[in-house]
């Protein structure tokens, strides 16, 4: 015991041996160094490659194309944006935004019962069933989903067969005879495009909606009912305002995804162009990169405004 003084450990341990030890010590002394090393690879990748490409694209939208030679003139001009405002191009923008709006509203209406049931009533095993029931369609192949609808909407397909058995074929013929939404067959009509958009993006609406609804305390709904509100009044005055951030969060996805898609309207729908198809056509066969770039600025600006409004409505807490 009296010799304890010799056993007192040093207050400061000696450095660890080897390169690993030295590195480990260096990271401990300078946490900034470790942070720097950790952030460099992802920032190089995303910041340089990705953001760099985005800015390069943005810059090209201020170039223009020489009508005679078809070559891109690398001088600053607003001519391309002037071209974007031509009536035919404005038509494309209006058509796409209208479609995105309709798809968003329809998804919200169809998503609500699923999200509400999953959030309020489903317990245990059923909760898992609902969760997977939304996740599997969300993650299964986008093209396969589009393909499935090509099968469904085909003239000789299942939908016609079912309606024929129910003797309701006149319904579909009547609908297809209508001017804007109709067409030769469902797979060649705007209605078809709309249906496929709703189907493909619906899971993106259900998930944030369910997350928001799960956070609504059940006793609020009971209180509302106790105070004499009808179910409709409770929905309008209590449930809907509280679930709204979730709806807006979901609408960010449905709106943005519809704005940029060019494959669905190409496979199912009329020959009228959407923004995505216009971008694809201009950069591809036409080789008009400046106009294609200017077209991509449209969804970016729309989504920027949309995200800003959504942030003000508190939608990001529901993501």
């Amino acid at each position, binding site marked *: 015991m009296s010799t304890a003084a010799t056993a007192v450990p040093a207050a400061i341990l000696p450095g*660890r041996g080897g390169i690993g030890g030295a590195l480990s010590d260096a990271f*401990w002394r300078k*946490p900034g160094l470790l*942070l720097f090393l*950790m*952030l460099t*690879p*992802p*920032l190089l*990748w*995303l*910041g340089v*490659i*990705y953001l760099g490409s985005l800015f*390069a*694209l943005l810059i*090209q939208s201020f170039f223009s194309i020489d009508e005679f030679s078809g070559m891109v003139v690398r001088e600053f001009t607003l001519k391309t944006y002037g071209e974007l405002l031509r009536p035919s191009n404005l038509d494309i923008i209006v058509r796409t935004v209208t479609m995105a709006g309709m798809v968003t509203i329809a998804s919200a209406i169809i998503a609500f*019962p*699923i999200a*509400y*049931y999953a959030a309020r*009533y489903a317990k245990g095993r059923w909760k*898992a069933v*609902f*969760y997977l*029931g939304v*996740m*599997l*369609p969300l*993650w*299964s*192949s*986008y*093209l*396969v989903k*589009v*393909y*499935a609808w090509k*099968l*469904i909407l085909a003239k*000789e*397909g*299942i939908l*016609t*067969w079912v309606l024929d058995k129910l003797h309701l074929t006149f319904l579909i013929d009547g609908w297809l005879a209508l001017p804007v939404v109709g067409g030769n067959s469902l797979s060649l009509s705007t209605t078809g495009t709309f249906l496929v958009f709703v*189907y493909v993006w*619906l899971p993106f609406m259900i998930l944030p909606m369910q997350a928001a609804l799960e956070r609504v305390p059940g006793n609020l709904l009971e209180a509302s009912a106790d105070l004499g509100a009808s179910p409709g009044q409770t929905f309008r005055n209590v449930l809907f305002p509280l679930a709204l951030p979730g709806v807006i969060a979901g609408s960010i996805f449905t709106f*943005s995804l519809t704005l*940029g*898609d060019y*494959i669905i309207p190409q*496979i199912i729908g009329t020959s009228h162009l959407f923004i*995505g198809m216009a*971008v*694809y056509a201009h950069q591809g066969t036409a080789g008009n990169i400046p106009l*294609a770039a200017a077209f*991509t600025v449209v*969804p*970016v600006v729309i*989504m920027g405004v949309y995200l800003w409004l959504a942030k003000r409505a508190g939608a990001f807490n529901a993501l």
Partner: protein
Amino acid sequence: MGLKIAAGVGLAFLHLPILLIFLYAFTTEEKSYQFPPPGLTLKWFAVTWNRPDVWEALGLSVRVASISTVVALTLGTLCAAAISQTKFFGREAISLLVILPIALPGIITGISLRSAFNLAEIPFSFWTIVLGHATFCVVVVYNNAVARFRRMSGSLIEASMDLGADGFQTFRHVILPNIGTALLAGGMLAFALSFDEVIVTTFTAGQQATLPIWMLEELVRPRQRPVTNVVAMVVVLVTFLPILAAYYLTRDGDQISGQGK
């Protein structure tokens, strides 16, 4: 009651079209999408099996998805660790940057990469596809890893250090076992995402065909519909397995050590 029916109908709406794909893979009809199928056969599975173009496309897709997943795992984990363990200026901006490739429509990512390749005179290759895919796969890994890091208590790492482990030992024996399943789940989702991606790929692939590109060509100009049916069914099955696995891996994520903060 009405709610129950509406929810059920909604779920059916989500699943019936996918089930229909399974039926069509067995149809004897070659020329049209006739329903109900005039007969059922297994013949098209054999035909598809002997198609070299399908195998080539599948091989390319698997290789691209594997490499993209590895890149996304590395970058996503690094980013998640940096964001969740420390506070520094510009943190919000970095998390926004990670989410951006998936928040903006895919066509924008695609066309900007393509024009950048053009400007830099990089020819299309296997690596240009990987470049595009890894960019938007980072976010899935990042999301999974960040969620797990948040639930993991920082005191665990401090305890490990106090007990004399160096940084690498702490990473190997304390951090990795705790985030392992989240990374595995993130990696599987990244694989599924890359395996299925078509919009960005059309811009970065040039003449090469991944499986989704092959399908897209068949959709625009159908050549042999029964083969497409079979491929569609196989793609559904191949993507379902990682999703189910990822679900079971993250489901038990609540039982993480060091949770009681």
